[in-house]
């Protein structure tokens, strides 16, 4: 065993009460970091999954119509004009098949789904409900918005005049699988659809308003034959949505909107949450650093004479510094083992103890090996940084002074 490591271990063993206490303190710090990170990232993943569960990462639409003034200025003459914004007509994307084919090949795009959507009423007896009618290509749609896994009953629409509806709408209208429902689009066209599936997307508004139907039926009802109203995109990294949106806008000439633009407030909230969590972790690391440093500074003072004798016996300044740096690293390693165990244990207990009425964890924790490894490395790095000052002090001790010291 290297002599410096041997000495570091012996010094730690000799001051086992101090070493134990400071390792426990490092462990607490690591546990807080592990627990807090697991909690915050779990919450954020859950929130994002809920938000993105019913929303495409990027949406392509036809640009809005811009009003054009009929008169233009000629020469030095000034023309006074007043331009009124026109009411937007329901105009779809024509030639969407070519657009989809070109996007399918684009880098950073995972799935593409053309949809047609518009306002409609569902009529049953004397009750009418306002809904959002969405015509989809079932397979493509499922790869962007995962409806099949959210189905409570039945199956996803396949063709013809089938419909999959939200669970709240089904309850409100007393619909079940096989029920017929009459859908009347805002344009006046109406169709009798058959319920083949009931889904729960985890969002009350969606469950109350969504009616999914095959694309062709949707196009007919919404008077958009041959066109789609938007193209939904899913990408592997949701946080690259803005970049991908800009890229797709350039490629297709369509107007793009990313989920990050639609949910700017949510993102701000998530960022604030991450910042406050980072702040807490930084202060935890700082206090752990100061804790280790103070223990080692005291140890240098206590071992002044012993450091002197080591120098007299031929230890170099670097060797002496190494002994204290290694002590810092060892305390960090010991603390990280305690902390990862404690943090993971706390997170597991919390997940199991706090359950919602369905028996699902109220707050999902995201514990992964990377987090634990990072927390451990942070603890070890903290130990090394904290040991730097005491190590330097020990190395600088004058051996003659140190030996004289009583």
């Amino acid at each position, binding site marked *: *065993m*290297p*002599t410096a490591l*041997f*000495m570091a271990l*012996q*010094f730690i*063993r*000799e001051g086992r009460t101090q070493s134990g206490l400071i390792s426990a303190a490092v462990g607490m710090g690591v546990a807080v970091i592990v627990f807090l990170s697991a909690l915050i990232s779990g919450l954020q993943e859950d929130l994002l999954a809920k938000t993105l569960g019913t929303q495409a990462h990027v949406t392509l639409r036809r640009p809005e119509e811009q009003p054009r003034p009929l008169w233009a200025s000629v020469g030095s003459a000034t023309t006074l004009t007043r331009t009124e914004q026109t009411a937007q007509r329901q105009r779809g994307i024509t030639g969407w098949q070519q657009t989809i084919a070109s996007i399918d090949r684009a880098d950073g795009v995972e799935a593409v789904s053309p949809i047609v959507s518009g306002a409609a009423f569902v009529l049953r007896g004397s009750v009418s409900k306002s809904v959002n009618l969405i015509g989809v290509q079932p397979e493509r749609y499922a790869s962007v918005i995962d409806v099949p896994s959210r189905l409570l009953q039945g199956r996803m629409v396949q063709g013809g005049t089938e419909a999959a509806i939200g669970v709240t709408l089904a309850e409100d209208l007393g619909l079940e699988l096989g029920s017929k429902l009459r859908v009347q689009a805002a344009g006046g066209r109406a169709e009798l659809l058959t319920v083949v599936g009931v889904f729960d997307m985890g969002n009350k508004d969606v469950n109350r308003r969504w009616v999914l139907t095959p694309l062709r039926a949707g196009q007919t009802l919404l008077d958009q034959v041959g066109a789609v109203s938007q193209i939904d995109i899913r990408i592997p990294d949701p946080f690259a949505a803005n970049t991908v949106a800009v890229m797709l806008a350039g490629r297709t000439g369509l107007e793009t909107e990313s989920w990050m633009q639609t949910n700017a407030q949510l993102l701000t909230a998530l960022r604030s949450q991450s910042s406050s969590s980072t702040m807490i972790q930084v202060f935890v690391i700082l206090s752990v650093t100061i804790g280790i440093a103070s223990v080692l500074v005291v140890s240098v003072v206590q071992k002044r*004479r*012993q450091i*002197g*004798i*080591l*120098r*007299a*016996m*031929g*230890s*170099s*300044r670097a*060797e002496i510094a190494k002994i204290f740096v290694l002590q810092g690293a060892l305390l960090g390693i010991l603390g990280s083992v305690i902390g990862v165990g404690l943090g993971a244990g706390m997170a597991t207990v919390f997940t199991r103890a706090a359950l919602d009425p369905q028996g699902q964890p109220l707050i999902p924790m995201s514990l992964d090996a990377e987090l634990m490894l990072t927390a451990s490395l942070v603890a070890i790095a903290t130990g090394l940084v904290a040991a730097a000052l005491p190590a330097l002090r020990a190395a600088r001790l004058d*051996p*003659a002074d140190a*030996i*004289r010291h*009583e």
Partner: protein
Amino acid sequence: MSEPVIDLTGVIKEFGKDVVTRVLHGVDMRVDPGEFVALVGPSGSGKSTLLNILGLLDRPTEGSVRVMGRETTELDEAERTAVRGDALGFVFQFHHLISALSAVQNVILPLGIARGRMQASLRERGVKGLDEVGLADRADERITRLSGGQQQRVAIARALVKRPPLLLADEPTGNLDTETADDVFRLLRRKSREQNIACVLVTHDPGLAERCDRIIRLVDGRVADVRPGQRAAAERAEADRDPPADERS
């Protein structure tokens, strides 16, 4: 005549920057291999300062310090540390053992420092060293569980483990009762003769000083006189007859 183990010429040592205090005023001193020298003098005469300079723990302000023929005043810190590790052994009044280590670990520590590794194979040499000072059976004992005399014996075993040509002992018996002090002194004397190790012993005890080959008396930072110890011859004869330490402990 063989080369001296240590040779000091015109050593001056001053402390302080604004107010300069001269502690040593041109000390000349040489110690030959195997020689047992007592360094005596009243408190404040510069004995400890001189011992620190002999031990390369401190640098003289002026003058030359040659260890085994090598001039050391111009060496950098790392080179001085290396010479110190190779050529010098230290025994102090308060033993200065490492309390975290066992007796045998303390003894082999200088070897571990020199090699950069504490190897299991060193243990045998440590136990042998302890055997030479009569403590083989206490090899794995914590230092704190040994008596003052035993601790000083461990310190001697540690100082000798690398067979250095020069041993520097700063009042090694100062903290011990008369009988134990006598025991430790005899041990030092015997080891010095057996292994031809020169020894510079700082002491306040005139009786001990007279048992050394030569007495160097420092007064106010100057060598006041140098003379042979009156009981040196008898002591040498006794050391030759002395039984191994382990038989006495």
